[in-house]
């Protein structure tokens, strides 16, 4: 079935990553199998040193697996040349990092257009595309700011814009909220969720269990192997843009900005919803991040994390994503 095959973006077949030789030999990944379907939002969790980042680097073609097979978009890329890997990175993969990783001496618009340089776009075209996507992220007025002139949250939104600009088939995020305060992490997660709802595939590494509510699938890793792998949304319910096509940057609709208004020290209004910052942080130190009230309850549920409750959650989420999808489609038609 071509359609089904088309749905699978990433396939890792017994991938191992070994460091050192002989006595010093250790495995960051051990016979790791993973299949990622288009439209999934995967959160990878696990203790430090369990191989999360290595996994992300291998998926992102920055690192090479010691053994095993890696199929990206139907092509076996485990043995392609370094130049081809670079081309894949430019066109198929978007990276979001914990420390934003914007080039400090390039302006925001140049940073966003960076991946396009290596996909062979002309300068005017690059800047126009970057301008479009920055408009979507409501950073257009700051296009010619330098990264250090923006707040952490803004920088990360620039980084998200950069990861999207080349219209990749997969977005890899390595603790994108790790360096942000709770308010900004919330905004970033909202951005990621919207991107996901438009049909993009996201793999995200995080330490924060509260964030797993955004995911359609949560993978817990332990010592380079999958500990648990829970799908909260059925494959058939995954958001999709058209007939299994990637979401184009051009398809991204302009939408209301995620506005923040600080009411008091503890409360902020995000996109018209009142959010408490203080309460959350006190309740659990793991949950560094604020959420909408309805999401808060979800987060607590997740912490209890039992497959029974997950099913209910899944239903709720599916409804939500469906709604969002409809909304975006309506806007498209407009």
């Amino acid at each position, binding site marked *: 079935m071509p359609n089904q095959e088309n749905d699978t973006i990433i396939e890792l077949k017994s991938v191992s990553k070994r460091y050192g030789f002989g006595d010093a030999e250790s495995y960051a990944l051990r016979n790791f199998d993973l299949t990622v379907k288009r439209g999934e939002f995967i959160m990878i969790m696990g203790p430090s040193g369990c191989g999360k980042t290595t996994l992300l680097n291998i998926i992102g073609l920055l690192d090479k697996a010691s053994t095993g097979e890696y199929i990206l978009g139907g092509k076996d890329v485990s043995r392609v040349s370094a130049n081809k890997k670079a081309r894949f*990175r430019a066109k198929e993969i978007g990276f979001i990092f914990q420390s934003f990783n914007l080039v400090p001496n390039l302006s925001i618009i140049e940073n966003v257009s960076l991946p396009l340089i290596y*996909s062979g776009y002309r300068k005017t075209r690059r800047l126009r595309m970057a301008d479009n996507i920055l408009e979507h992220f409501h950073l257009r007025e700051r296009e010619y700011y330098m990264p250090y002139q923006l707040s952490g949250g803004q920088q990360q939104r620039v980084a998200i814009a950069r990861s999207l600009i080349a219209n990749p088939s997969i977005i890899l995020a390595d603790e994108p909220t790790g360096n942000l305060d709770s308010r900004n992490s919330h905004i970033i997660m909202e951005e990621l969720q919207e991107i996901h709802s438009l049909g993009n595939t996201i793999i995200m590494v995080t330490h924060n269990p509260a964030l797993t509510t955004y995911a359609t699938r949560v993978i817990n890793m332990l010592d380079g192997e999958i500990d648990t792998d829970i799908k909260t949304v059925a494959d058939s319910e995954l958001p999709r843009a058209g007939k299994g096509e990637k979401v184009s940057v051009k398809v991204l609709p302009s939408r209301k900005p995620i506005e923040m208004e600080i009411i008091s020290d503890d409360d902020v209004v995000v996109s018209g919803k009142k959010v408490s910052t203080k309460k959350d942080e006190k309740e659990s130190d793991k949950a560094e991040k604020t959420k909408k009230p309805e999401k808060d309850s979800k987060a607590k549920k997740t912490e209890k994390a039992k497959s029974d409750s997950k099913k209910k959650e899944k239903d709720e989420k599916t409804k939500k994503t469906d709604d969002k999808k409809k909304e975006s489609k309506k806007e498209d038609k407009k």
Partner: protein
Amino acid sequence: MRLLVNTHLHLAIDSLRQNRGRTFLSALGIAIGVASIVLILSLTGGINQLIGTNSDKNNANLVLVRPSNGKEITDSLIDELTNASQYSKSNLTLEDVKVIKETEGVEYVAPLAISNSTITIADRSYESTNVVATNNDLQNILDLHLKSGQFLDYSLRENVAVLGYNVAEQVFGTTEAATRTFNYGGQQFMVVGVLDEINDPINFNGVDFDNSILINIKFASTFESSIQIQQIDIRTSTTDVVDNVVSSINEKLSKTKKGDKDYKIITGSDELHPAGSMISIISSMLTLVASISLIVGGVGIMNIMLVSVSERTREIGIRKAVGASSGHILLQFLFESMILSIIGGLMGFILGYVFAFLISLVTPFAPHISWQILGITGAVSLTVGILFGVYPAAKAAHKDPIASLKFYR
């Protein structure tokens, strides 16, 4: 490809702009090296021009045939400078002179057979006097003027001689030396004329005519066993036919000499004065020395590029993560060093000429400006940029993206 080059050019210029001070300083290293080369080339060019205007007034239609032993150019250059070739064995014959004389477009032909020998007057002998055996065409070729008497005329009498100004003064004590006689090579010669003072000891004939005695070569060949023709001077009817004359002489001589390439034909005023080659040797030596400073400048660029690469490790990591291949990174940094050295080259070019003009204020010659010098400096600085930029660029290109992304400074 063009797009790629364009993009990297922009990238390089942008990153150089962000470090103006550093860019200027590292370019300055190259600039000084290039400036010294430009200075040397423009000044020696100026000297050459000065000599050129002094020595060859109208040598455009001159053609020289010299014996050649097929040596390397540098060897013959040294031969020329030491005048060694003038006393070496020559394969040019009077037969060749006759052949050349019959060539179309040739107006005057004069062979020169120079020997350094003793002449005697009565019982006094004068050692090592230049005796030049030639014919009466020489007067027209070299535009020789007579102080008194007349020039060689074979039809008049065969054993006649024309004295150089100084010889006449020294030997006979007067420039009115006509009808005086002297002995040379067992023959008695009668002086028929004395040349005007020329005072041009460095010329393409290698003969100081003020200190020479001219005799008829036809007569000399009767009493000397083998006559050594060091040079055949040819003046063509017009400058336009020089090329034709050269090719037809070449053709004829190779026919008569049965393919032996034991002669060379020289034309053009540049090649006619031997001092020019002397100066070009000196200038090339000086340029070589000046290029050491260029190497120092190149090392400076390499140093700066290495610093820049390690400072921008994180940027390299980011670029690789968003899809730059090693080649892209290599090009980016290579372009940077190339632009650095080209900026340095331009600065040096201007600086060199400014210095040259300042120096020319106190010297009699003006600096020589030519496209060749600009070309040389451009090529040299580009080469330096590539040569010293490859290593840092390769270092940048081979950085591991994962390690680079973790890099904090």
